[in-house]
């Protein structure tokens, strides 16, 4: 009987499984990240950190819609200079911690990336895709020239792997992916721009009105983005969006992802989701006679 190994590789990063905690969910406090790593995640991505402290938006910052979630946290963060301690706590267990950063210019991104590297982050993820904050996030991430400049600048400044997280809120995600091609891997997708109105209050539920939709609703959109970019660029991809079970992980991998990030499902399934999915993937590999996950990466893409 073969050994079923879940070991995954993204750029030069080696992971014990393809399952990573997504940015922005339970990853502001170092102790929380540490606990999630202890309880089964192969790596965590920190929440997105900027150059200066930002309070983010006033609550309501989330609206639950069954298992889906609309959020406009507003990139609340303590500023990069106050985040080293959290990375230090999170890394104490010895698994990879990926530092997510956001900014408006190539210089800002590269300075943030250098600081993340100096804190010991094992990779850096460029958030080019937050859908609800003006001037950063998806406004940056829908401009191919700027994306190219940011990725190039960061790559020239740090030695740790660089992941570029892209937004689905564009006409042509492949064009943006090509612009980001110097990244070691692409992360697809961030949330989808959306609104919920409370009809009894006659007001948008989120204080910011606009938010980002996550959860099962966006899975087919994420799978499409991964499929598209894998087919057209062949780049290494981390899939993200609406994953809550092993089927979703397998689907993303067959669309071309080498690993995945899981966020919103933590809300419904709790931290045990990582261990549950790992077990289920192994059962699937057994019954489908898959010896290595490498076999299925992109296996569902018709060329």
């Amino acid at each position: 009987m073969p050994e079923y190994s879940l070991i995954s590789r993204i750029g030069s990063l080696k992971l014990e499984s393809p399952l990573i905690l997504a940015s922005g969910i339970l990853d502001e406090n170092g102790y929380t990240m540490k606990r999630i790593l202890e309880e089964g995640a192969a790596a965590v991505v920190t929440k997105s950190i900027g150059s200066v402290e930002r309070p983010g938006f006033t609550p309501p910052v989330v609206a639950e819609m069954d298992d889906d979630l609309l959020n406009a946290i507003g990139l609340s963060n303590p500023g990069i200079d106050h985040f080293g301690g959290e990375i230090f706590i999170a890394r104490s267990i010895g698994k990879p911690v990926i530092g997510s950063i956001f900014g408006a210019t190539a210089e800002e991104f590269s300075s943030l990336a250098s600081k993340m590297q100096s804190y010991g982050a094992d990779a850096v993820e460029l958030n080019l895709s937050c859908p609800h904050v003006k001037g950063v996030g998806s406004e940056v991430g829908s401009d191919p020239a700027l994306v190219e400049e940011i990725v190039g600048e960061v790559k020239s400044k740090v030695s740790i792997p660089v992941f570029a997280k892209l937004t689905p809120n564009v006409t042509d995600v492949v064009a943006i992916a090509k612009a980001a091609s110097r990244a070691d891997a692409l992360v697809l997708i961030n949330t989808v721009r959306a609104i919920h109105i409370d009809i009894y209050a006659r007001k948008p539920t989120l204080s910011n009105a606009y938010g980002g939709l996550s959860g099962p609703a966006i899975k087919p959109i994420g799978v499409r983005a991964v499929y598209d970019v894998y087919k057209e660029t062949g780049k290494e991809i981390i899939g993200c969006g609406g994953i809550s079970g092993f089927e979703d992980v397998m689907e993303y991998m067959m669309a071309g992802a080498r690993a995945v990030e899981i966020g919103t499902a933590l809300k419904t399934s709790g931290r045990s989701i990582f261990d549950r999915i790992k077990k289920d993937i192994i059962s699937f590999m057994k019954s489908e006679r898959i010896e290595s996950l490498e076999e299925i990466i992109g296996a569902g893409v018709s060329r």
Partner: protein
Amino acid sequence: MIHADIIRKEKISPTVFTLYFHWNATVLPGQFVMVWAPGTGEIPMSLSHLGKEKAFTIKNYGQTSDKLINLEPGERIFFRGPYGRPFSASKGKTLLIGGGSGMASLHPLIKIGSSGLIAARTKDELLFMDEFEAGKVIATTDDGSFGIKGNVLAGLKQLDLESFDMIYACGPEIMLYSVYNHLKDMKVDAELSLERMMKCGIGVCDSCSINGFQLCMDGPTFTMDQLRYMNEFGSEKLTFSGKRVKVP
């Protein structure tokens, strides 16, 4: 969001109001909801009354609480929940230790026979004292305007704490930390309901976390045994922006 109309409003101290409404749901003592004041904000709030008629007891603290206590009967309130782990039910002799608006969350636990220790800065801020049986409740005030002058410790020292089957406490972290330290080597069962910044209430934003536990899901109530392993308790917490600061 759930919505309900305010049916009654009571001023129970110069800065604290109780808003009553109908909500057909089972909520257990210690659980909370996120209350929304459209256009202003959304804040965590315990339910102080849990019968068919439910209520919030709200202290005027800032923007959103102010907006809420200025609502009038007939106006609408919005909220979502209930969230969080309730206090565990317990038989026998119980002591309730409340600081400031923390008494709101303990109010549903006041029963015939319960004892109380209420701590506040000043007399006006002592909530729900008269709901205890005569002789069953003591108070401390920082300014000595009522009861024992001093903080919660002064009150704790007057009580035979090991004679209680269960102690429930709710209030500012600094007070709870004193309670915890005072009790930690005693033979007593206690549950403390903590407060942290809460943005989501549903275990995703991490703003309410303490040593990897989310107050909104794993808490806000914790047992003495859980608190023993929390080095952030009474020591550090994250601000609204996520900056690590000392607990005041």
